């Protein structure tokens, strides 16, 4: 990656609050036009990294570059990045149009021109009809889209999104995910998206950084992060995994080390069936119907429990108490560090 197409670069960035190391040595390069997600539980440092990029926080040490230029130490209003806040932060005393036009107004754009541009931005999120309303009169989803319009109207190089969908209900969230993705493609702006929702990160992103305790533990494409988690933390935080510690690995897999196995990679067959490859005998402890499939918990003879995700098309569904043989492919077993 060369400097020309790097939107944001973080070099050994630290941010300490007294004894707490909120961000503890983060190196990061985000490419131009990328949809980049920072994933992690609350307190993992992802939001602080976002605030460091926006300029609301200054790093204790380290450098932040925007498009190859060092912006460490500059104020938020000097940075060509915009933020969509978790609680939207729409100005309550202005109507929707004035909210959206705000960034243009403080840049000295003439009234008629900025109104036109603001209406265009509102059109992009299909909200021209609420231009005269106050934020308090909008629904949560509408406020979310107004906040988006307000940020993109000034055409920043980078748009930072701090859990923007967190306050919306499931249906709306899924709809907004699609809209976000389309918007990002249409505008070609780099999106840096903070979320604790691993599914959201997997669906939307070009690349994901998984955060833990102020550090990036894994950085890669959604499929890399999902298929090849580097350690137990990533394997259990991104999706669900069957984790084998050293003892379980020896007993079940006959191998040294620690491993993860995704529930959907395991198949259950009758114990009498002859199957090659890795396998383990067990008894069905529980089955849970999920709609798209069935989650089956198997007590293995070798000791540990195994969670299996069976597609709902499986004809002969296993029942509680059935003896089964769990099989999987060797390459689906992920060795953890």
């Amino acid at each position, binding site marked *: 990656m060369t400097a020309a197409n790097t939107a944001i670069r973080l070099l050994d960035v630290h941010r300490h609050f007294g004894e707490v190391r909120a961000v503890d040595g983060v190196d990061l390069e985000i490419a131009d036009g990328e949809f980049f997600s920072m994933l992690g539980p609350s307190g993992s440092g992802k939001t602080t990294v976002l605030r460091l990029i926006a300029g609301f926080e200054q790093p204790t040490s380290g450098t932040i570059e925007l498009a190859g230029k060092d912006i460490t130490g500059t104020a938020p209003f000097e940075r060509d990045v915009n933020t969509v806040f978790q609680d939207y932060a729409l100005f309550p*005393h202005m109507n929707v149009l004035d909210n959206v036009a705000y960034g243009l107004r*403080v840049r000295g754009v003439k009234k008629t021109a900025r109104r036109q541009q603001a209406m265009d931005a509102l059109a992009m999120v299909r909200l021209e009809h609420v231009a005269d309303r106050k934020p*308090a009169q909008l629904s949560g989803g509408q406020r979310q889209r107004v906040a988006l319009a307000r*940020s993109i109207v000034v055409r920043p190089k980078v748009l930072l999104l701090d859990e923007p969908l967190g306050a919306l209900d499931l249906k709306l969230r899924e709809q907004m995910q699609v809209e976000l993705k389309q918007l990002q493609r249409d505008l070609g702006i780099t999106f840096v998206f903070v979320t604790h929702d691993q599914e959201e990160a997997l669906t939307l992103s070009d690349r994901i950084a998984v955060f833990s305790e102020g550090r990036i533990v894994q950085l890669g494409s959604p499929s890399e992060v999902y298929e090849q988690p580097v350690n137990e933390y990533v394997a259990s935080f991104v999706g669900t995994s069957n984790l084998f510690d050293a003892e379980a690995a020896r007993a079940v897999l006959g191998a040294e080390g620690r491993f993860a196995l995704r529930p959907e990679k395991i198949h259950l067959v009758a114990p009498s069936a002859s199957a090659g490859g890795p396998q383990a005998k067990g008894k069905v402890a529980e089955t849970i119907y999920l709609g798209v499939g069935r989650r089956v918990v198997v007590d293995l003879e070798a000791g540990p429990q195994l969670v299996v995700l069976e597609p709902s098309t499986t004809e002969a569904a296993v029942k509680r108490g059935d003896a089964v043989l769990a099989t999987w492919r060797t390459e689906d077993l992920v060795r953890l560090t």
Partner: protein
Amino acid sequence: MTLSPLTRGILLGFTGMVLLLMYTPLLVVVINSFNPDPSMTWPPEGFTGEWWRKAYHSAGARDAVLTSVQVAIVSTLISLILGTLMAFALQRFDFFGKHSVNLLVILPIALPGIVTGIALNNAFRGIMGINLSIYTVIVAHATFCIVTVFNNVIARLRRMGGNFEEASADLGAGLWTTFRLVTFPQLRSALLAGGLLAFALSFDEIIVTTFTAGSGVTTLPIWILNNLFRPNQAPVVAVVAVVLILVSIIPIWIAQRIAGEAENIR
């Protein structure tokens, strides 16, 4: 909560009595300002506008009103600026002794006026060697007027949070632009409410004023006190009192309405 009819009756009776006790004297003052008998015998036997005319032409009363208005406006302005700055300091920043400062700012409104009066009188004349004048009255009034502004502004800031200012900075606005376009408009009603209360407080203050006013500085309450017991001035005092009631009630009423509207918007 449901109350038994008896409890409700008793409470209603008490409320009525308290209100009656509070407002009947005010009503008597209003009526007396139209009482043709200069010694204000009750009940009045007729109606006259004579006292209102006399009060209007009384140079002493007019000067007193003017002095009071000047003192109230200037001390309100001082409290608006200092009270707002203080509210920002205490709401936005953490520093050593923050809670003590908070208490010290609010204390003057709880302190007995006589204590404030004596203390300031000593401070001005004894320690600082300043002659008492209209300016000492203004400073003295500002010490407790600040509290109303401070309380209103800090309550608003607490509800606002810092997010709007971050959003404004994020969209490219500098500090001053952010204050002008985002912070101030949201503080406006709090400032108005606090300012009106401060004005009303200053306008009818008498104790602290007595101790801090220079010779020749006569605010309206002091003028009333001086003239109340002069037989031929009594009706004019009643007229001035009515004016004072109006001047005090109107700002409070507006302040309350503003505060109420601000609640409804949110």
